[in-house]
């Protein structure tokens, strides 16, 4: 975690020092274009288009009610958009059910923390690791050797994941008994069990204490280094700007702007819409976020 840079005139002290990884920028992993969604007379999303490059971290920020969670729902198949198309590495996701999209390598977390409370931590991870494609119910029940081999591999991966999210000693505990922070870690671990190509995180830092924020941030960076693209909705702007290669700003269901973290953080409109803060020389607005 780098020390905060001294405030330059007119600029907040954060700002991504990220250099885009050039070879990855060439492949657009997720493309959502023209997504619109209305509830009754209220337009939650109005022709929103975003792109996520493979292996990159994209931030999605905007005031409450700007449509971020709705966009996630539409991308992941939890809601059907009124218009627009979503494709993953060129393959259309139109009309696919949410579970089918999950099986294509798109995982997500939810704004309201979700785990399986009656299953142990380890079983939560195992349940999150999908069966291999082509395994029918019959094979699962008869516990054919191929199924058993897959199970073993999944158990090994679960153990490794337990290590990574540091819940090894709580492996047998029912997930419902974990503390909030532990559940957050478990939630992340679960989403990673299938080594997704794209992980959508809906406010991963909500309600998390600062030291755990740091841990989660390091973990997310590690995940990204391994090749998973991240699309993060967050209100913790410092975190978003530190991590992301590019940031989209949503306001009232529309894309206000898109750019590098520096571009976004410099933009007057974003400041007005989101932070209600104006640029002043030497200003340090670090602590005002959240």
């Amino acid at each position, binding site marked *: 975690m780098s020390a905060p840079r001294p405030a330059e005139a007119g600029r907040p002290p954060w700002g991504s020092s990220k250099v885009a990884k050039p070879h990855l920028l060439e492949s657009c992993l997720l493309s959502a274009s023209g997504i619109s969604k209305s509830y009754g007379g209220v337009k939650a999303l109005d022709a929103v288009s975003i792109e996520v490059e493979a292996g990159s971290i994209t931030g999605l920020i905007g005031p409450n009610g700007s449509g971020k969670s709705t966009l996630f729902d539409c991308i992941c198949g939890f809601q059907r958009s009124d218009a627009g198309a979503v494709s993953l590495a060129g393959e259309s996701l139109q009309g696919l059910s949410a*579970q089918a999209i999950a099986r294509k390598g798109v995982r997500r977390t939810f704004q309201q923390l979700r*785990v399986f409370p009656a299953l142990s931590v380890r*079983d939560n991870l195992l349940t999150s690791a999908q069966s291999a494609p082509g395994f029918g119910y019959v094979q699962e029940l008869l516990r054919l050797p191929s199924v058993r081999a897959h199970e073993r591999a999944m158990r090994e991966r679960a153990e490794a994941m337990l290590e990574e999210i540091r819940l090894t000693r709580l492996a047998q505990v*029912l997930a419902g008994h974990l503390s909030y922070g532990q559940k957050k870690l478990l939630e992340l671990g679960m989403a990673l069990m299938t080594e997704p190509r794209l992980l959508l995180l809906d406010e991963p830092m909500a309600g998390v204490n600062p030291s755990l924020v740091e841990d989660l941030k390091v973990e997310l960076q590690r995940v990204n280094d391994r090749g998973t693209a991240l699309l993060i909705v967050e209100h913790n702007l410092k975190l978003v700007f530190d991590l992301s290669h590019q940031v989209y700003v949503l306001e009232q269901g529309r894309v206000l702007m898109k750019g590098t973290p520096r571009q976004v953080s410099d933009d007057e409109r974003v400041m007005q819409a989101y932070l209600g803060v104006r640029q002043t020389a030497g200003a340090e607005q670090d602590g005002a976020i959240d």
Partner: protein
Amino acid sequence: MINSVSPYLLHIGVMAGIYVLLVLSLNLMLGYCGLLSLATPAFVGLGAYASALLTLRLGCDSSLTLVAALVLGAASGVILGIPSLRLSRHSFVIVTLSATLLLQLVASNWVDLTRGALGLADIPSLRFGSFRIDGKPAWLATMVVVAALGIGVFWTIVSSRLGRAMVAVRDNEPLAVATGIDVMKIRLFAFACSGAFAALGGACYAHYLSFIDPGLFGFSISEALLVMVILGGSGTLWGPVLGAIVFTVLPEALRMAPELRSLLYGVLLLGFVLFMPEGLARCLSRPVNRAASAEAGQ
């Protein structure tokens, strides 16, 4: 040795074995999938009538009729499940209840097939080739084997990935979907298995008591099963099984009038639902988890 045991006790043993099968049927839906299915009597009746009719009208060997009952039960689960499992959970309960009423209506009126309210009598006992299950001791042995097999199959299902998926869907459906679990498919599978278990129980019932009538589709089976599952511990493997044994033995031992027994069932059910919804099995295993969770909560 077993021949010296009172026939009455043997009878209770056989009925307990049958109820174990029925309880597995309900527990899979209610305990593991979190769906209150009142369709068990429907599957029981279907299995009973199918096996009985195949034996009476076509003289089929019991290996065939039992398989037919299993298949019919599973197929009915799928047929009933496809429209009803995508409804709200309230509607699912209503539809399953209505299915049993509808089948009762059909069984009472399709006299050519089922002899209507007269029922089917003189149903032969189970016969596998030249080997007949004759007499209560043989039946008890048979039911012990069948029930054990049923429990074995049940355990195979719930301890597999499929069982975990059912619990996942029960406890947090959106998360299960986000994990890639096909909700409808797993529920249909569970309902089909539930149908198969109950149909097998129904077939055994028909061949053991040698008489069935449309009343088999009535609510009293569900009434007893609910008590067995809820008190035993919905969602555990052994709780409802023990519940089945206890609540087959107890009413017989106490020799209660049917209305009084039903009244007691109602009171017990209400009490447990309100005050101890996890049943007795969970109560006993709770201290284990409490220790682990105390450590987690730091």
